[in-house]
């Protein structure tokens, strides 16, 4: 009987495509907008993710997210180092600098200052040059996207010179780095150089990066650091979620995307529901004939749900497929952030399930109440 239901469904191409279109539209919009939202959110924490190695970030207790810099005094580094259970700790500078290019133009940059001795937090995916070149005088490493933004159309070339805070900076390497929320170029340098590039301030230490000793968990080490220093110490994951929560709670981004997702859900439900209902009404005599011939209401229910499920599967697959295709294609010619984790697929699947369920419920009522005697009426 499910085979008959399937044949009935696909037999009317126009109606079938109409129903599928509604689901595809909803799945595409939900998956695409949710993926862009996830992409945007991932940008907010990209700089935490890019700092590989240390498990613990120590900062002022009032810091709310990664770009909310509340500088510490340099002595805080030693207080953190002295906490039992901390294997090592290093300085990390993060701030914004204004670069004056040789062409005379100015460019805002994200300035990251790495511990002079260890270069902890250095980029891992060098394209041109080497991390060790940061030890050279005035050396900086730029991210490839930032380089292309400042010098569009030009080949990667080390040795380029610009000024920051009247200090000379020489590009000694180009690295691949995750894009940031602000989309500014990223400039890596040594901590001691970064504080010279930055505008003068009494306190300049942004974060202390630390690692727990073997046998001490990062969470436990964080508790000890907070207890001993009064600073805020977070594991890498905790800091990522703190930053994400801040953007979700304090900005309108989730609401804006949520509205679009909701619209996609409602429009998709309306299109799929209406077309599915029309399809059922059009076939009501056929359903009546099947009931007259001995098909039970349960079987009719199964047939309608089977039809809805089939539409849902095709619509979902096509919708998320198109969304993924869109994301893949947009990587090459736009700077759109697009990240489709499994949660997006699961949420979209749940939304599509609700859409086809709602769409079929109206139709189910129609076919369940229809009397088989309807087939005897002319």
């Amino acid at each position, binding site marked *: *009987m499910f085979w008959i239901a399937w044949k009935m469904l696909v037999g009317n191409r126009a109606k079938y495509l109409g129903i599928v279109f509604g689901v595809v539209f909803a799945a595409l919009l939900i998956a695409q907008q949710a993926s862009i939202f996830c992409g945007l959110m991932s940008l907010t924490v990209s700089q935490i993710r890019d700092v590989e190695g240390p498990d613990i970030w120590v900062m002022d207790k009032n810091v709310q997210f990664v770009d909310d810099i509340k500088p510490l005094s340099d002595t805080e580094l030693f207080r953190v180092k002295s906490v039992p259970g901390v294997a090592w700790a290093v300085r990390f500078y993060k701030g914004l600098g204004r670069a004056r290019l040789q062409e005379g133009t100015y460019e805002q940059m994200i300035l990251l200052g790495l511990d002079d001795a260890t270069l902890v937090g250095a980029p891992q995916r060098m394209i041109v040059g080497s991390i060790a070149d940061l030890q050279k005088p005035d050396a900086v490493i730029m991210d490839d996207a930032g380089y292309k933004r400042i010098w569009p159309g030009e080949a990667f070339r080390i040795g380029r010179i610009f000024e920051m805070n009247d200090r000379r900076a020489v590009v000694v390497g180009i690295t691949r780095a995750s894009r940031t929320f602000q989309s500014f170029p990223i400039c890596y340098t040594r901590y001691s150089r970064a504080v010279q590039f930055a505008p003068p301030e009494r306190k300049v230490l942004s974060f202390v990066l630390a690692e727990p000793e073997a046998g001490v968990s990062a969470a436990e080490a964080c508790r000890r650091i907070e207890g001993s220093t009064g600073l805020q110490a977070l594991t890498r994951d905790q800091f990522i979620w703190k930053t994400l929560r801040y953007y979700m709670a304090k900005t309108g981004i989730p609401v804006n995307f949520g509205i679009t997702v909701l619209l996609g859900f409602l429009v998709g439900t309306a299109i799929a529901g209406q077309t599915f209902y029309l399809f059922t009404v059009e076939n009501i005599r056929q359903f009546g*004939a099947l009931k*007259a*011939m001995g098909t039970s209401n349960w079987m009719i229910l199964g047939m309608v749900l089977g039809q809805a499920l089939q539409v849902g599967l095709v619509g979902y697959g096509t919708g998320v497929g198109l969304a993924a295709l869109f994301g893949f294609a947009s990587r090459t010619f736009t700077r759109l952030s697009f990240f489709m984790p499994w949660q997006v697929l699961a949420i979209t699947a749940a939304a599509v399930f609700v859409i086809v369920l709602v769409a079929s419920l109206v139709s189910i009522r129609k076919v369940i109440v229809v009397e088989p005697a309807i*087939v005897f009426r002319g």
Partner: protein
Amino acid sequence: MSAAPPDDALAVRCRGVTKEFGANGALTRALRGVDLDVPYGELLMLVGPSGCGKTTLVSIVAGTLDPTAGDVVVLGQDLVAMGNGRKVKFRRDNVGFVFQQFNLLPALTAAENAAVPLLIAGWKRAAAVEAACGVLDRLGLGDRLANLPSELSGGQQQRVAIARALVHEPRLLVCDEPTSALDAENGRITMELIQQVAVQPGRAVIVVTHDARVYSFADRIASMEDGRIDAVEVRSSSGPRAGAGP
């Protein structure tokens, strides 16, 4: 007039059947105490003007509509006492339907349409379609098995509907205006097929019709008027066929 047949020779036995639609002020009496016997092996035609209750009566006999009052015993089973689930099974196993508008599924081929009752009964698709092909072949549609209803003429579609009604070998065949959507020639062919293939000793056939051209195919004609059976005319010289009964 011949003597009334014994109850076990009756495929259909209705006594005092009434059917009312609506309620209170808008009450409509479609049937007003109908008595009807249909022996096995008989082709009975129900005739009468529009709105006289033919379709209501045949719907009740086929188990697709419940009467308001009266007794309805079909193939030895009391339909009034039967629950809805059992009635669905009863129709599936025992009743074949031929509808005025054919009601073929447009997306299924002729063979697949004819196989639907077997699929409802739980047959495997391949076996059901194979059995349906055999019936269609007997009805002269052996070369149109793979055609969709839209690719068949009205007469051919009605033959597919007859094949669908007979494929599971029901003991009661109910035909609602089977010739009204057909021209005279196709109407005659359809009734010939029903008479040749469907009318058998262990089966009863009830045909609701307006079409006076096909009256000659009936064994008896029950004329209805205003929710009652006015007269029953015996047309067949041989009367109900011998060997009837379950």
